[in-house]
Each structure stands twice: as structure tokens, then as C-alpha cells.
């Protein structure tokens, strides 16, 4: 469903992605690991359409469409979701109003009528339960004053509400306690089916005990330099990235 070929991107004239290839098929889970600053968040942002990043080469197709040609909201409409590494706060906009707007905007994009309040409330209840999100958070301002872990859990809640075709999780596990980690992973596992896919960016193999990846990629200096299965993650955990960089030379 997602095909990235030779993707190059830069920010403020500085090249970050330097010819990245990746293919994701329906039903798959891909993990992306790599040292700080290697370009993982950049990749997620470029896929989501953040405009500060300039794509200088390569191509990305998503469900047969040229992804790079679409606006960020159209990408979301097509079913791309990114759980942010640093979710933003929007004062005065309730969590519930925000997600309702999002759900209905995505429906509108797909030429579906807005959800009836009753249906929406049911969906909300189900998904809140899925990620064990405290009901009180629904009425609070979006992410405002949420703890780090609550913010991350809220991202997964929103993902569950929007039920994307491709979910990109940027370090959703960072800052989560053990229980929250399990809950978040559990949420992802329940959302997973043969028609959707997930790209999970993480620094810790721990998460991959819960969300079992089909592929593990190492992103280094703007390129995917090694791909393996979940054993690779274990190996990285033990040995770090040095041996890979040495292999490259």
C-alpha cells in the first residue's frame, strides 16, 4: 500500500533523508529503529506532509496515489495517520470536539455523511475502552495539561477513532510506564487487520515484545541500511548501532 522509492528530503537546505526505500504491504507491521537524529521523525513528517520539509527526490505512492501530491488533510483522508512524538496542545478545544471534527472531516473526504451523535458516542465509548482512556480526558482541552503518558495514549485513542489504513507511530512508547505501554500496544494489536498496516518508530525492543513486527529496519544517516525480522531488534538492543555503521564502511 505504501511504496517509498529513493526518497530525499531536506530542511532549511540541510539534507536529512538521502535516498530511502521502503515498501509496506497490507497486514504488515514495520519497525524503524536508528540512532538519534538519523531521520526517523523526518520520514514520518514527510509522509504526513509537513511543509517545512522539502522533498528533493524520489517518489512515494500510497494506495496507488502519488502521496507527495496530496495536502496533509487529504493524506489523512486517504487513511494515513501519524501519532506524534510531541503532540500539541490546543487550549479551549475539547478532546471530544476535536476528534469529532476530525472523524467527520475524514468522512466528508470519503464522501460519507457525518456521524449521528448517537453513533459517535458509541464509537467514542468503544475506543476509550480500547485504550483505557480516562473519560475525564474527553472533556478536557486537547492535550492541555495532559501528562506525557496521557498524551501518547490520547494519540492512540485518536488513531482508534479514525481507524487509519496506515498508522505511523513516532516513539509512542517513549515516556510510557509499563502498564501504559501494554495498553497502547494492545490497542494497536486490536486495530490491526489484514487490510491495514503500521510503521512503528521506536528506540526500544521492549515495545516489539508487544507489537510484533514483521520487519525491523535500521535507519541511519537518512537511509535504511539494514532490514531484518524481530531478531534484529534484539541484536540492536544488545550491540547498539556501531557494528552496523562499521559494516557500512
Amino acid at each position, binding site marked *: 500500500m505504501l511504496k517509498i522509492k529513493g526518497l530525499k528530503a531536506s530542511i532549511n537546505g540541510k539534507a536529512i533523508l538521502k535516498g530511502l526505500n521502503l515498501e509496506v504491504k497490507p497486514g504488515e507491521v514495520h519497525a524503524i529503529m536508528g540512532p538519534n537524529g538519523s531521520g526517523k521523525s523526518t520520514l514520518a513528517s514527510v509522509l504526513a506532509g509537513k511543509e517545512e520539509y522539502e522533498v528533493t527526490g524520489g517518489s512515494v505512492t500510497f494506495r496507488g496515489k502519488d502521496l507527495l501530491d496530496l495536502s496533509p488533510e487529504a493524506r*489523512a483522508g486517504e487513511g494515513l*495517520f501519524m501519532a506524534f512524538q510531541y503532540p*500539541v496542545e*490546543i*487550549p479551549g*478545544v475539547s478532546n471530544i470536539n476535536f476528534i469529532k*471534527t476530525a472523524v467527520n*472531516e475524514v468522512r466528508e473526504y470519503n464522501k460519507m455523511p457525518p456521524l449521528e451523535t448517537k453513533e459517535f458516542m458509541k464509537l467514542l465509548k468503544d475506543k476509550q475502552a480500547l485504550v483505557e482512556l480516562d473519560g475525564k480526558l474527553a472533556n478536557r482541552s486537547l492535550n492541555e495539561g495532559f501528562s506525557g503518558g496521557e498524551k501518547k495514549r490520547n494519540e492512540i485513542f485518536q488513531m482508534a477513532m479514525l481507524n487509519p489504513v496506515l498508522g505511523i507511530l513516532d516513539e509512542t512508547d517513549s515516556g510510557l510506564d509499563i502498564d501504559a505501554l501494554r495498553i497502547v500496544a494492545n490497542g494497536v494489536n486490536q486495530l490491526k487487520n489484514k487490510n491495514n498496516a503500521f510503521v512503528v518508530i521506536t528506540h526500544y525492543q521492549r515495545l516489539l515484545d508487544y507489537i510484533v513486527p514483521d520487519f525491523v529496519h535500521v535507519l541511519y544517516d537518512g537511509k535504511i541500511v539494514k532490514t531484518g525480522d524481530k531478531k534484529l531488534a534484539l541484536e540492536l538492543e544488545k550491540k547498539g548501532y556501531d557494528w552496523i555503521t562499521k559494516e557500512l564502511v
Partner: protein
Amino acid sequence: MSDSEKAIKDATTGEYKYGFVTDVESDKAPKGLTEDTIRLISSKKNEPEWLLEFRLKAFKLWKEMPLPTWAHIHYPEINFQEIVYYSAPKPKKVLNSLDEVDPEVLKTFNKLGIPLEEQKLLSGVAVDIVMDSVSVKTTYKEKLMELGIIFGSFSDAVQHHPELVKKYLGSVVPMTDNYYAALNSAVFTDGSFCYIPKGVRCPMELSTYFRINEANTGQFERTLIVAEDSSYVSYLEGCTAPQRDENQLHAAVVELIALDNAEIKYSTVQNWYPGDSKGRGGIYNFVTKRGICAGVNSKISWTQVETGSAITWKYPSCILKGDNSVGEFYSVAVTNNFQQADTGTKMIHIGKNTKSTIISKGISAGKSNNSYRGLVKINKGAEKARNFSQCDSLLLGDKCGAHTYPYIECNNKSAKIEHEATTSKIGEDQLFYCNQRGIKTEKAISLIVNGFCKNVMDNLPMEFAVEAKKLLEISLEGSVG
């Protein structure tokens, strides 16, 4: 230019959507202001002698007053001799139903999305429409009359309840108060009058839709609301204006009087023509609004959503004279393009245990300037007075300005005054976050802006809140995409 910068720019250069002109034949005075103009207005309106004298006295005072220059606004000098001070739709026979209202007028209201028929049938709102300077039609008057409530045009009140008008006119805003109040006192043509008798809770929201319709017609509305002991009234004032090239002056005076245990809630949605995206035209809005909590335990609450006018100069204020009286001011002011707003409030604490709350939200976009100016004054005798003020500004883009001028004068040591202020900007990150969730930039801006204004909007009556929200969207929405 990045996409979201473009969206902000588009959103902030949106054309005024309510620009249309109703073609109603009108009867007007020649341009200019002399004693003769005032005599003409007074005689056209068949006024008693004392009112003519009131006007002439105000005119004399006004001529000697200097123009106020302290506000953070700039505009070309107004030529007061170029203004038409009286214009009335041609006299027609008395109307019995809406069917008899000029279809042009009805069409205008429909364009505004305020179908009168529906309003009348569904919401039970009595509407007193002020088209230019004369009331065209008053509804629900009889029903209100049963309760002893008087609600209608100011000129009607002058004819039928002169003693009430005489007693309260100028009692809260004296003609000497300021330049524009003096001008208004001299030349006001019409407005609304509302009287709630002792112990009566007005069962419906009273509302007036103001329209400025005649090119070059200064509008000088006069509103007077009196709430007798233990009464309650919620009054809605809303307005939009047709698009015009010349600047139009508007200088209204609103006076509220709340007696013992009475409560007045006054809500405004103001959307006068702000001028085009180059800063041409637009309404000059110099308003004096003031209420007095004259009685014990009385309460006056001002809520306003201001999106229109080229220039807004407006400080709805409360004089808290009665012990335990309460004053509130909730305001959202949006400025866009070249609009200038200098608004705020004054809370004058005189009685003991008086309490005031000020929540002001300023939103600036385009090249506009938005200032909050507030005075909290605690008099010597105002034991244990309390005030809480919160003034927040939101900037869209980086060519606009927000300014806050809080003044505090405290003459009683037992008083407690709290002030909070913030300035923030709609961030690229917030917009991208919304976009990533499928929300278009235009909608994202309105979501963020509405969130910002939430605790003011929450104070508007339900039916008004919907309209106000729409207005916020319209005034910030552009033609994105």
C-alpha cells in the same frame, strides 16, 4: 509562502460576506448639523419641549468639546457637516403582520440567515428591528405588555412613557460624559427602550437587529433599559451592515439601570462593515455603553462579540453602586485586515462587597490592531470589593498587533484585585496537527479561535451563540483551497 501561511493570509483577507444594500425609499434631512437640524429631528419625531431642550443643550456642549485622542486608533478627520443626521423609511401604514413588511427588508434578513418568520414562530424572540433610524416593526409587544414590560422603539417610549424616559435619560451616561455621548444626546434619532416592572422576569430574550442602511447616514442610537426591583431581563443586540465605500459614523449610547436585586444581561453581536481588504470604507463605531447597579444585590452582565467596524471604540462599563452588586464583562473582539479596535470596560466599585469579572479575548489578524483598555476603580467606601480580570490575545500571522492597557485605581485596602494576561499565536504546529487529523486549515483556525473564545461564548444565550460562532468563522474564513 508556505501553505499554512497562505491559509492564514487567505483567512485574514476574506471578503465581507454580508455586503449588500437594501433599496428602501427614504426620507432624509439635508447634510450637516446645526440647531435647525436638531429642531427638525425633534419636530419630525413630535417630541416634547423638554427633550428638544435636552438636545440643544447637548449640542451646545458638544461644539465646545475637543475630539478624544487617547485611544490606540487612527482615522482621517470626520467632517461632521457631511453627515446626514436624519433618515427614515417613508412613512407607511401601520403593519399588522410580517407580510406587510417591505419584501426588500425581509429579503435582507433572509440573506443574513435570520428569517424573521422563523424567529417569530420558533424561538419566541420579540424582535424590534431598527432599520436606519426608525423602528419598522415591533413584535410580541402585546404579550410583553400583559406582564407590564415595555419594549419598543425609543421614540414610542417618548410618546407613551415620557415620564420614564425623562427620569432615566442621561442618568447613567450624562451628555457631558464624552464627545460622542454629547453628539448622540443632541442628534439621536431612535433606538430601543425597555422597562421591566418590579418582580417580573422577562420570559423571553429581547432582541434588536440593527442595520445601517443609508450611505452617509450617521447612526445615533439611544437605548435605555430599566430593571425595577427583583426583575430580570436578557437583551440581545445584533447587527450587520451592507458594504459601503464611504466611512459611516456610528455613535450609540446605551444606558442600563438595575435596581435592588435586579439583573440585566446585555449581549451584543456586532458585525458592521469593517472596510475592504485594503482598508477602504467601513463603519466607525464610537459607542458609550454603561450600566449602573443602583440597587443592592443587583447585577449587570455585558457579553459582546465584536467582529465588525473599521474602528471600534467601546467600553461597556458598570457602576457598582449598590452593596453586593455584581458587574461582568465578557468580550471577544476580532480584528482583521486594517481594522482597529480599542475596547474594554470600566468597573467602578462604590458599594460594599461589590464584585466584578472581566474576561477579554482579542483576536488580531491581517494588519489589524486590537487593544484592550480596562479600568478597575475601587472607591474608598467599597469595602471588600473584588475584581478578577483576564485578558488574552491571539495573533494570526505576524503583521497584526495586540495591546493591553489595564488601569487600576484602588482606594480601599480590603479590596482584592487579580489580573492575568496572555498573548499567543496560532502555531504552525497546531495547524499541522489538525491537518494531519484530516481537518482543513480553515476549519482548524476556526476550531482554535473558538477554543480561545470559549469561556466568553459560553456566556451568550444559546441562539445567539450559534450566530456568533458563525460570525467568527465568517470574519476569519477566507477562500482557502
